């Protein structure tokens, strides 16, 4: 859980032009395949978008992230089952593949189904095992499943995937030690884990811009004090401090309260990085012509900062934010994994991975690792996206 790909020299102008990835050395940031007359009149955002689009991995990252947030928004619909529903008959049920081509006696059709699995108990060791029976469980889209309240507002029982007969169950990702559907749990976990990143970043954003901006704009003693503060926070060993902070949360707190405090703890780290980026940019920009012009025109300081300076930073800020989100997701996962983050009735990727802590249970049910795969994919996607954004952030650079 270390600091991913952060070169420590972020606030020097040299390092900002320098990508952590590779690509840019060969491709000029400005999109060359767009007609020159279009380039001449394009807005800065248009140029940024063109530069960004050329970064293939970043585009993939963008799609993956958009997809994951879509899943989190519609978690209740996407999940086929209630994620907390225990099922004694499906303890450690292995994952089932979805088949699409249905060969029956009356011909071949395209119809999704899974093979039904039967449970046996070894009479001597009492170990449970599952074997495929010849029976098929047919699936359909927008079928009926357990009832739920969509966004806590509307009562419905429509699910994106459901078994045709409501009595059957299917487990794409298997089931855990209490027979809960891992797929539904991962989907709900996506909602919490992905949103912790977003909210954490929002808190970091406010802190980072406020303190970094103050530091860079005013300089002098304020700058010195804030810089010492940032250095202090940066040199605290993150994980021990998180552990200490998280250990002080009473486990009896309601979920939303835990959620909020964990987000706060996690975001305590993110802001320093952002603060340094903003400060560096402000320092560099403070004496630019357009800022001096605005000052001579008698603009108030607030107007200079928010109307003139911040807009030209936006793309850099968005890039730094994108790179900060995966760190927060990793942080939450780690804390919850240790049992110091969110507590069990809540579902996040970290809480799910906590189930995989025990070597006995993972050797019996390796599918408990699946949430880990989601963590890796999400973090990778954010890193690609952030890298692409950082490279595209300044479309005028050659």
């Amino acid at each position, binding site marked *: 859980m270390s600091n991913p790909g952060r070169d420590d020299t972020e606030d020097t102008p040299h390092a900002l032009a320098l990508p952590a990835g590779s690509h840019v050395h060969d491709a000029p940031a400005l999109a060359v395949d767009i007609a020159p007359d279009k380039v001449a009149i394009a807005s800065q955002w248009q140029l940024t978008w063109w530069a960004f689009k050329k970064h293939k991995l970043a585009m993939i990252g963008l799609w993956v992230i958009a997809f994951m947030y879509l899943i989190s928004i519609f978690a209740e619909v996407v999940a086929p089952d209630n994620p907390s529903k225990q099922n004694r008959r499906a303890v450690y049920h292995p994952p089932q593949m979805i088949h699409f081509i249905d060969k029956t006696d009356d011909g071949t059709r395209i119809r999704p189904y899974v093979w039904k699995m039967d449970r046996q108990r070894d009479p001597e060791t009492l170990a449970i095992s599952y074997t495929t029976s010849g029976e098929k469980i047919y699936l359909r889209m927008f079928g009926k499943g357990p009832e739920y309240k969509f966004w806590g507002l509307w009562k419905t029982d429509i699910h994106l995937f459901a078994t045709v007969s409501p009595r059957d169950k299917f487990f794409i990702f298997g089931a855990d030690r209490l027979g809960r559907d891992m797929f539904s749990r991962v989907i709900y976990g996506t909602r919490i884990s992905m949103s912790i990143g977003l909210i954490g970043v929002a808190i970091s954003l406010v802190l980072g811009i406020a303190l970094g901006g103050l530091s860079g704009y005013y300089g002098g003693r304020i700058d010195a004090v804030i810089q010492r503060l940032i250095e202090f926070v940066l040199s605290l060993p993150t994980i021990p401090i998180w552990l200490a902070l998280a250990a002080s949360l*009473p486990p009896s707190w309601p979920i939303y309260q835990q959620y909020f405090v964990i987000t706060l703890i996690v975001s305590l780290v993110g802001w320093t990085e952002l603060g340094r980026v903003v400060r560096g940019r402000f320092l560099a920009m403070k004496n630019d012509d357009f800022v001096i012009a605005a000052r001579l025109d008698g603009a108030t300081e607030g107007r200079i900062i928010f109307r003139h300076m911040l807009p030209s930073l936006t793309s850099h800020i968005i890039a730094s934010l994108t790179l900060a989100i995966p760190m927060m997701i990793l942080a939450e996962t780690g804390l919850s994994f240790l049992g110091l983050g969110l507590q069990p009735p809540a579902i996040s990727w970290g809480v799910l991975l906590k189930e995989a802590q025990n070597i006995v249970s993972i050797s019996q049910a390796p599918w408990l690792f699946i949430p880990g795969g989601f963590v890796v994919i999400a973090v990778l996607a954010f890193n690609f996206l952030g890298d692409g954004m950082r490279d595209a952030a300044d479309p005028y650079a050659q």
Partner: protein
Amino acid sequence: MIWRFILKRIIWMVPFMFAVSLVAFLLIQAPPGDYLTTYIAKLGESNEVMDQASVDNLRARFGLDKPLYVQYFKWVSNLLVGDFGMSFEWRQPVSELVWQRMGLTMMLSFSTLLFTWAVAFPIGVYSAVRKYSIGDYIATTIGFIGLATPNFLLALVLMYIGVVHFGSDVGGLFSSEYKNAPWSWPKVWNLIQHLWLPVVVLGTSATASLIRIMRANLLDELNRPYVDTARAKGLSEFWLIMKYPVRVALNPFVSTIGWVLPNLVSGAVVTAIVLSLPTAGPLMLQALLSQDMYLAGAFVLLLSSLTVIGMLISDILLVLLDPRVRYE
């Protein structure tokens, strides 16, 4: 000049460590209640009851009845003479519990750092020189996955592979017969045999980012005119790269020790808990949970000083390597 710089940085550490001690103390005091509350709750679970008089008695003996600032002052003034206080839970001086574990933590962090550099340096140089070769793509892919995988997940997966495919438990730092044995050469060898797993687990993400940093920096240098000049003069390709561009590209590489070492120390906490290593992490977690405040405080403080020392080493190395860095 360099000595003045180092001296200045060391003097800076004094107020810094003071601030750290304050933060550590406040953090450990933050949970409601104190060690005795946890202790009584634990007794209550096994249906033992403590009467109020003996609770008060214990509280007074531990000094927990005093106001916070008195407790803090007492703690810090004892720290200055090297006394870390008593662990409530273990009924032992904290220093006895802490040093061996801190020693192993430091050893683990430094071995990982060496591993990280030894792996990242050649791969980074290779990736830059043979840009877009198959090797470069493999390194980049592994690097990205290494960055995105949380340490504990990697540890779990490796443990899973160990148990399922090799039938051996790969956790811990020693085999059971050496666990409590005094230090000897066979024990050191046993340690080395166990060390590779945590080193790999801990080192992966740092290695991954170092490869990327090295590659990006070296790529920047390879296009410079001085490289062409050297090549035109007939220097062999190997020496040409090693002697000039690599040296320049090494600069940011070295500066990463500033965050690699602290991250290792910090990351080692979680990994150690998963792999049940006898390092600082698991004991600190336990101390935090049972509010054994002097023990937890000592760990937070010592891990913070390791972090600060890491940054100091990085600054010194940077100055030594690149005279252009100003002694500010």
